[in-house]
């Protein structure tokens, strides 16, 4: 007897996606993570645009990841022009990136994922019974936004980041206000750890997983670096950002505006769990948080991506506080930005967006106008891995009833924290080649 499980419009994720799993008896015959966001064609629309406009436009690929898109875009533009920015600019960008990660992870953990664990349809429904938990999450989310506002000029689509550096540097007063928020955030992180370590376990899907993440060279951060590590079954491969196409070797699929990525024929996972798997643990506090959350690496349980996000959230609040303390102690002595002189060139930049590896690859003409652009987003990369985990979850479930399986499939999709506005952009021109 054949059964179809269908989620028309997956709730509590960013963008428009659905789930389809077909079974015949106990066997899974088809799995699809459908992405039906419309095509916005931004890579094509920025052709001919000046380098001054590019980051502002591509940031609109996605609101939740807008700082990541802006900064990855600027990193590619600066590399194409051979521009070196100041250490101060690097530090402020690192801080901005952490702000986005804090906001995105707090939003995901408290508002989108936690209701699943506790059986509620939304964070506001959860707040009726657990107001303190939701308020803690909203405060952390607001703290992430405060970092983005202070450094990036706006919580969504940062306006203060430009090729060469920043429009304006934060004042000491603004940094002190941020510091006060971060001190409160440290306390909220303790409450977060208490809350998440007390959640019922979500342990219903296991499969050997291939992970890919940025090599952070021993300093856990999301912006610097240009080499990717892929890890599977004790095997490891390194890929330079410039060779990203060998990693994101995509195949078109008919059901989504996205192609699927694979590594040696196997899908791979990117995001917080992958980052913690391919990089050394950042510090003892993170290791202790991991133990309390029951997270053991490498993990074949995709639900553990939620716990990995919690570890990063806790680490980033502490690290952001250390950066702000350093900025307050040493002062902001460098100019906001270095001059930018365009030249013909091409470059690929890679960073770790909250959901995983993000690539922006540009070619510029001598006047600094875009000749071609290619953007590969983490959700696009994760789509194949999500489908792989859908299949395993259904096969490993003793209860094959539609409601039970639907709940598990939705939880897996959400654990990946998919960002579907982003994912449709990963499709790139290749078909005509």
């Amino acid at each position, binding site marked *: 007897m054949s059964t179809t499980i269908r989620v028309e*419009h997956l*709730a*509590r*994720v*960013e*963008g*428009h996606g659905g789930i389809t799993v077909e079974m015949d008896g106990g066997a899974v015959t088809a799995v699809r993570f459908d992405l*039906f*966001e*419309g*095509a*916005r*064609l931004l*890579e*094509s*629309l920025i*052709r*001919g645009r000046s380098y001054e*406009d590019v980051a*502002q*436009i591509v940031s*609109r*690929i*996605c*609101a*939740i990841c*807008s700082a990541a898109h802006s900064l990855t875009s600027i990193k590619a533009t600066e590399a194409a022009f051979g521009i070196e920015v100041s250490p101060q600019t690097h530090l402020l960008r690192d801080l901005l990136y952490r702000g986005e990660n804090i906001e995105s992870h707090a*939003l995901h953990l408290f508002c*989108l994922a936690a*209701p699943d664990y506790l059986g509620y*349809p*939304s*964070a*506001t*429904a959860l*707040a009726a019974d657990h*107001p303190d938990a939701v308020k803690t999450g*909203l*405060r952390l*989310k*607001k703290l992430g*936004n405060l970092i983005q506002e202070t450094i990036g*000029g706006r*919580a*969504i*689509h940062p*306006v203060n980041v*430009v090729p060469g550096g920043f*429009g*304006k540097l934060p004042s000491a007063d603004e940094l002190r206000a941020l510091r006060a928020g971060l001190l409160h955030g440290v306390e909220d992180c303790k409450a977060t750890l208490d809350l998440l370590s007390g959640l019922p376990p979500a342990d219903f899907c296991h499969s050997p997983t291939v992970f890919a993440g940025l090599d952070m060279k021993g300093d856990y951060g999301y912006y610097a670096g240009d080499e990717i590590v892929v890890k599977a079954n004790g095997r490891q491969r390194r890929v330079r950002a410039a060779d990203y196409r060998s990693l994101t070797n995509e195949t*078109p699929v*008919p059901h989504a*505006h996205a192609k699927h990525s694979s590594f040696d024929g196997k899908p791979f996972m990117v995001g917080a769990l992958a980052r913690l798997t391919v990089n050394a643990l950042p510090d003892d506090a993170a290791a202790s948080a991991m133990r309390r959350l029951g997270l053991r690496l490498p993990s074949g349980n995709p639900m553990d991506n939620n716990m990995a996000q919690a570890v990063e959230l806790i680490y980033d609040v502490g690290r952001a506080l250390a950066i702000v303390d350093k900025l307050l102690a040493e002062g902001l002595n460098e100019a*906001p930005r270095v001059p930018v002189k365009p030249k013909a060139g091409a470059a690929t930049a890679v960073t770790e967006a909250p959901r995983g590896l993000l690539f922006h690859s540009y070619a510029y003409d001598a006047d600094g106008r875009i000749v071609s652009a290619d953007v590969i987003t983490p959700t696009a990369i994760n789509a194949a891995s999500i489908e792989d985990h859908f299949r395993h979850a259904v096969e490993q479930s003793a209860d094959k009833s539609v409601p039970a399986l639907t709940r598990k499939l939705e939880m897996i999709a959400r654990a990946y924290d998919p960002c579907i*506005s982003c994912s449709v952009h990963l*499709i*790139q*021109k290749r*078909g*005509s080649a």
Partner: protein
Amino acid sequence: MSKPTVGIFGLTGCAGDQLAIINCEDELLDLVNLLDIRDFVMAASEGDHTCQLDIAFVEGAVLSKHDEEYLKKIRARAKTLVAIGTCAVWGGVAAMDGGRGRDEMLNEVYGPAGARYDSTPARALGEVVKVDLKISGCPIEKDQFLGAVANLLNGDAPLLAGYAVCAECKMRENNCLLVENHQVCCGPLTVAGCGARCPGLGIACVGCRGPAADANFPSAMEMFAAKGIGADRITAKLKTFANAAGGGQ
């Protein structure tokens, strides 16, 4: 008074206006007490996707037949339909003129598979259905959203600025990037509401909120010309976010 029934929807876009609503961290739990939010897929499962709505907030542009059908269904359900964000009000970045046909751009990005996609030229909501209120911004400003909700709860029509970013910039006593630095700043022509955020940071306005109804376009163009900035340059910049505005609306 019973709580108004509300839906919050996203067509194709970056979800930034829905995120701006979720970013009202201090007000979110109060909002839920004042509004009966029935349908908000980005934030809640188990929503009611067919009920009648007193207010529908819709972000994003119409970029596919699916978007168009979805929007028409929302319109049929809603007493008041509010377009939120520059995509919904003006078409946004997806409506930018790429200088090439949509088929060609689809082929560039997706290859031959692109021809099979459900993809239509970007349209603002008002080009497809009747829109009762427009709150622009990329993304919308929290204060304007919360103010509009308060007005609607009281049965009032929200009053949104028709004047330009320039007015807010002068109130903040910023140095003028156009007059003093000769930068191509869209502030004289872009609708206020952002508090002149970008010029306050030394960054020229990119026009992300769309055109100001009260702006004096001929006078602004003369001022740009006096600075050696041709109409083509300023128009191209304005059309990045609000192509429809340059198309003669």
